């Protein structure tokens, strides 16, 4: 299991800053919400350095209009596109398949209890990124159901965690982590804020803001990786 960070935790941070933040926090994975016009060489610049301990695991996009461009980005980076669509599951399946048909690697973003999406996604032969949020009342049980149906889980996102961990009691995170551990899950577990209202505490947790002191602490924490321009 590789604990990681979604760039949604710090939407205004550069890729370089996100990578350094992950390294400082001991997070091994990074998922980027990508923007139109992003080129692969921009990503390679940020990840091309010595002593790299952070791996880019997914490119999250809600762009359903430029499947060919997303497929090209996925091919050139070797990183899967995670497609989050606003429509129903059938629409998401169709758009994800289009990226794959163009030669890209793509996973469908799915959220909530497995019974709501598992059969359709598996029957469509698609890989998926499972987003665990408050709509999952039994994420540990869901993990076991997914494992029973597919034999493996490859990508998990967790809304909450990080600075929200202490407030997540009784949500079923512990049984989820136990189920993943016992299944020898080796994929990413991407942490993302459960709500934009927590952006300030995430920013503080990530060391991007000072506390209530003199404000010098965050600046004095030097990144553990050096970023080459």
């Amino acid at each position, binding site marked *: *299991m590789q*604990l990681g960070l979604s760039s949604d935790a710090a939407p205004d941070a550069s890729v370089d800053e996100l990578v350094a933040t992950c*390294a*400082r*926090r*001991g997070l091994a994975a990074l998922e980027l919400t990508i923007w139109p016009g992003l080129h692969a060489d921009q990503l390679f610049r940020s990840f091309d350095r010595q002593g790299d301990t952070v791996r880019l695991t997914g490119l999250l996009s809600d762009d359903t209009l430029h499947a060919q461009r997303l497929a090209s980005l996925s091919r050139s980076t070797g990183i899967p596109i995670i497609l989050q669509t606003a429509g129903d599951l059938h629409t998401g399946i169709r758009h994800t398949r289009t990226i794959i048909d163009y030669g890209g690697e793509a996973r469908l973003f799915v959220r909530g209890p497995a019974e709501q999406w598992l059969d359709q996604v598996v029957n469509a032969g698609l890989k998926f990124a499972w987003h665990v949020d408050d709509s999952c009342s039994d994420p540990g049980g869901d993990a076991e159901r997914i494992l029973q149906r597919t034999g*493996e*889980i*490859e990508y998990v996102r*967790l809304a*909450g*965690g*990080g600075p929200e*961990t*202490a*407030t*997540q*009691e*009784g*949500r079923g*995170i*512990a*049984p989820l*982590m*136990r189920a993943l*551990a*016992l*299944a*020898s*899950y*080796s*994929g990413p*577990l991407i*942490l993302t804020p459960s709500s934009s209202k927590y952006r300030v505490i995430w920013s503080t947790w990530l060391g991007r803001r000072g506390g209530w002191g003199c404000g010098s602490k965050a600046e004095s924490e030097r990144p*553990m990786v050096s970023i080459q321009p």
Partner: protein
Amino acid sequence: MNTQQRVLDVRVIPPREKHPTIFSTFASLAPGEAFVLVNDHDPRPLRYQFEFEHTGKFGWEYLEQGPAVWRVQISRTA
């Protein structure tokens, strides 16, 4: 999926649920099996609890000791 190594990362588990989850995971192991515990601090108090509750039945090996992450392989020996 890597079937060789079980990793329990407790950094996302609420504080009061951490130790019960760790011991529950340990209880699921057969003798000779192990898991890697990942935490953001040295889990020394946990080791004392293991020594009290599972004397002579567990192995404890540090794989990484900070500064950001601690990894401990906890094995079931009996």
